[in-house]
């Protein structure tokens, strides 16, 4: 709970209140639970990946171009998110806002291409009910996409609070926590990139 405290001037703003410190630690632990959640989805996907029934093979429909655009957008957004937190630590609200809004733009771009890709797959005759393999694909990748969507709304809400209240120990802890979340989604994407798309295409095209 928040107390007025004395601290080292080098302590980042987000760590200056007791609430901030507790919330950040709690969020790290929550990310541990998220790792367990995604690990379960990955394991499910890998068990089911060859069970395509009468539907198309996964690698058959994957497209390199869309994959690379999505990957580029999301990885860049993680970098700009890092820049935003860097600006926050310099107490530069404008810089924080600017880089975070760029991050959100890149996140929206990622979602646009992901949705396009899903629509393309559905058009080609692969949807969540086509086969066990496609169920695994849509739910794993879709859960990640749902996380990104949630993240976009969440970051927007936090930015509104920063705009209204400025940078305080409370608002800066919120920004920092959303940044942890955003980077985590980036990490998950790297696993999806490898385990779903690369392996899928290599298995299919040899």
């Amino acid at each position, binding site marked *: 709970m928040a107390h007025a405290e004395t601290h080292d001037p080098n302590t980042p703003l987000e760590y200056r209140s007791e609430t901030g410190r507790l919330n950040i630690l*709690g969020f790290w632990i929550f990310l541990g639970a998220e790792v367990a959640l995604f690990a379960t989805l990955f394991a499910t996907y890998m068990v089911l990946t060859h069970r395509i029934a009468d539907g198309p093979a996964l690698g058959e429909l994957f497209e390199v171009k869309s994959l690379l655009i999505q990957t580029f957008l999301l990885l860049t957004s993680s970098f700009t998110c890092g820049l935003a937190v860097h600006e926050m630590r310099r107490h530069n609200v404008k810089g924080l806002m600017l880089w975070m809004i760029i991050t959100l733009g890149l996140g929206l771009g990622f979602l646009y291409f992901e949705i396009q890709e899903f629509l393309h797959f559905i058009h080609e005759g692969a949807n*969540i009910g086509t086969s*066990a393999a496609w169920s695994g694909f849509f*739910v794993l990748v879709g859960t990640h996409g749902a996380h990104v969507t949630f993240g976009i709304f969440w970051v927007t809400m936090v930015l509104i609070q920063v705009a209204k*209240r400025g940078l305080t120990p409370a608002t800066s802890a*919120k920004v920092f926590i959303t940044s942890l979340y955003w980077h985590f989604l980036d990490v998950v994407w790297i696993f999806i990139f490898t385990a779903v798309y690369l392996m899928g295409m290599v298995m299919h095209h040899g």
Partner: protein
Amino acid sequence: MKWDEFFVTGDPMIYGADVSIVLTMVGILFYLTRYKKWKWLWTEWLTTVDHKKLGIMYIVSAVLMLFRGGVDALLMRTQLAVPEAKFLDSQHYNEIFTTHGTIMIIFMAMPFLIGIINVVVPLQIGARDVAYPYLNAVSFWTFFIGAMLFNISFVIGGSPSAGWTSYMPLASNELSPGPGQNYYLWGLQIAGIGTLLTGINFLVTILKMRAPGMTLFRMPMFTWSSLVTMVIIIFAFPILTVALALMSFDRLFGSHFFTLQGEGMDMLWANLFWLWGHPEVYIVILPAFGIFSEIISTFSKKTLFGYKAMIWSMLLIAGYSFLVWVHHFFTMGSGAAVNSVFSITTMAIGIPTGVKIFNWLFTMYRGKIQFTTPMLWSLGFIVNFVVGGVTGVMLAMAAADYQYHNTYFLVSHFHYVLIAGTVFGCFAGLIYWYPKMFGYKLNERIGKWVFWLFTIGFNVCFMPQYFLGLDGMPRRVYTYSEESGWGPLNMVSTLGGFMMGIAFLVLVYNMYYSFRFAKRETTGDAWGGRTLEWSTPSAMPPFYNFAKIPEVTGLDHFWRQKQAGKVEKLTAKDIKKIHMPSNSGVPFIMGSFFFVLGFGFVFDWIWMAFLGGIGVIGTLIYRSFEYDDGYYVSVEEVLETEKISK
């Protein structure tokens, strides 16, 4: 959907339940209005973020669920008392064993223990509240709403009937049509959110909120057991979340995770379920181990024997708990190599558990043992739990398991560990910390009656089931033939079951009797305790727990202070203003929206689920924009509460 499909109809027992539900609701509404209790209910309970009150609400809910699950159990025992009985038909019997198992594990055992953890752990570590008091209220309300959603199934829409394990394809749309199975999926999903949040909350609380001087290896054993339990929750519950979501997708959106069509894999469900389900078993036993450790130490007047060995055993058990899940389906074709590995890990988990048993015995050795009711439950635990443990090792041998699998031998085994371990632990903890929660003890004489009735009834009920199992009686059958020869032992078992039911009623009577007549405690130290929760000057700690945060110098700090005659007395100059979190009605409202969401999905009314979802998100946004830093309790108020003159 027609009304006669919406409400369950046709069975006189269900109509009886309808009537009793309506009468109870009317009675509660009448009482609250007649005695003008609405405001009290809202400000003192529904909006509270005080860990002690939330703990009490958890425990009250769990006792109600124990009643519900117990009635289910007695209905089953009645049906099985004689061969070819016509009391329940097969569908009704299936529904009852499904709700019995689900309710007892998810909505009774876990909340009972989480309730005790809520009340006790912050006090044991010398904290004024948990790390996230608001989140704690969210945890409670999501649990409570999940439980209510699951419970209304038997009068609205019909109960699930695929067993608490809900194996696929039995639980699929084709074989379990209708809303029953959806109640299982959404009731557990919503309650599971609360459990995960509890896991995070208490892990951070224990890691970060301990009183100065309380290093990790100076923590009371119950706090240690809670810490380990929270770690298991954090890694196990996301697996359940995913498994339930995937089955929901199979049922609602036609995906093929566990179905027979589309090359889905039914065994994947069994694996995911038990990957969560086995750690779950330890989630409900480790806190009970912690409770027994506190009680045995207190009433032997000795420090716990092998404190560090106890901790390392628990950590080992926590690790192993994720490595044994296949032993739940040795017979389902995993092959000899896989079965051997899991057979060995399963037997290995008996070693740290055995270490703990010997530690409790050595704690008592040469101790001055007081036979209070909590101590009786602890002693009963050791004897009966070992019976469950030994038969567990028998089941762990994969080759032999082909004989025991799916028989009453297994049913008896897990009741011996879950009742003698978890339920005895819940009762022992409830009685032990009752004066901390309510300011008076439960009557000891009636308590001893409860103990003997329950323990004898328990053995009369379940011991015959080992032999029924060895004689080949399968579990989950609604009746059996005269020629099977299982009639007499089943009758004995049923009589034991009813004895346990009577013991439960006597326990409830004891709560009423003690409320009326028990001597009120005048100090905070009702039993001659050893840990910080007993060091508060008043029997029930004030809402801020400690006027002055204690400084801890070692294990059993309070006990050693008492022995040295150096218990600190608070003086006016020790008192500073105290920061506390504000109450909030949002968690309750969020829970209500979760109910709308879950109910919508149960009946596949997507518009309703959507509205509920909007409501949940709305409350999240509201909370995000609310900057409430709590408030300060003034020095004057603390002085007055603590009865210290200036």
